[in-house]
């Protein structure tokens, strides 16, 4: 009965079972649905928009932007973080549900970039958040951001999400 309505598994080989672990299956799903928070702070966010656009198109990795931290898995810090923005950035990060990941996009988010002598720029977002991937460039091209996203995916796929914590 079910075979009649099955439009995906049309080949006989597709109906065969696959052996895997729960970790791998869940990680595959997690890695391919990385929804990122719109965290455009400066000119890097223009490249972030380009990466979401049709040419670089990170939709094909299952990534799309969310306007709220509560639905996001990944925070792409695109731009210059000032001391006034720092507590707000920290708060948005804390509002994201775990597991959560951070990409520091561009020189400003990595180390303060060209604003080393400025009075109000945080010298790298890693002073306030744990960063998973540092992406250099001023600003990085969409291809580079796609690469950074793939690095996060690699990291997720290696994680043992269901590993029991030892007491």
């Amino acid at each position: 009965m079910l075979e009649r309505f099955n439009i995906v598994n049309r080949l006989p080989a597709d109906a065969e079972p696959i052996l895997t672990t729960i970790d791998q299956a869940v990680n595959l799903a997690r890695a391919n649905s990385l929804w990122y928070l719109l965290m455009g702070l400066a000119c890097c966010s223009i490249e972030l928009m380009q990466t979401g656009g049709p040419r670089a198109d990170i939709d094909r990795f299952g990534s799309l932007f969310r306007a709220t931290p509560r639905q996001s898995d990944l925070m792409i810090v695109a731009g210059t973080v000032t001391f006034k923005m720092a507590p707000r950035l920290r708060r948005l990060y804390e509002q994201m549900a775990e597991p959560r990941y951070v990409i520091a996009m561009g020189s400003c988010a990595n180390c303060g970039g060209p604003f080393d002598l400025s009075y109000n720029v945080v010298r790298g977002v890693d002073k306030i958040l744990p960063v998973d991937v540092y992406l250099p460039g001023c600003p990085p091209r969409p291809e580079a951001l796609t690469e950074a996203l793939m690095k996060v995916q690699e990291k997720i796929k290696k994680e043992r999400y269901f590993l029991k914590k030892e007491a």
Partner: protein
Amino acid sequence: MEQEHLKKLIAEKLGEAVQSMEEMKNNDLMIVLDSKRLVTSMGTLKNDPALGFSTLMNQLGVDYGDRFAVIYNLYSSVLRKKITVKVHLDREQPEIASLERAFPGISWFERETYDLLGIRFSGHSNMKRLLLPDDWEGYPLRKDYVYPSSYNGIDTSRKDMLDDADSEDTARV
């Protein structure tokens, strides 16, 4: 020619509030005003039909080391002339009347000047910091400003990778 006419007109309208007048390198006129008569003088510059300096183009503060100055750039569509108005302030207690009533758009300019130089504008409706956090200490554009080493537990210095040349990673670079 026109400049002489403008000088004469301003001296006539503003009277003794003008402390000095000079022509700047870009051929615009700069006048130094008495800080106590700033509001009335600016009101005259704006509202007098012969002058008509009704456009406030910019406002900024300057730290000269021994004193502060506040500078206003005005434009008159009647005379088609720009003018720079300068007011000198005391170094210890830099305070001057706000021009919010004459030029409502000056609000954020004055807040920025307060934020970066610590010049207070009396009569301002919202004299708070604009760019920096509210709990920031000091005024960054002052000449004697000392940059803090940390703010709310955030380190403000950047680590130079060349500093620890002992480690193997940087030795290779």
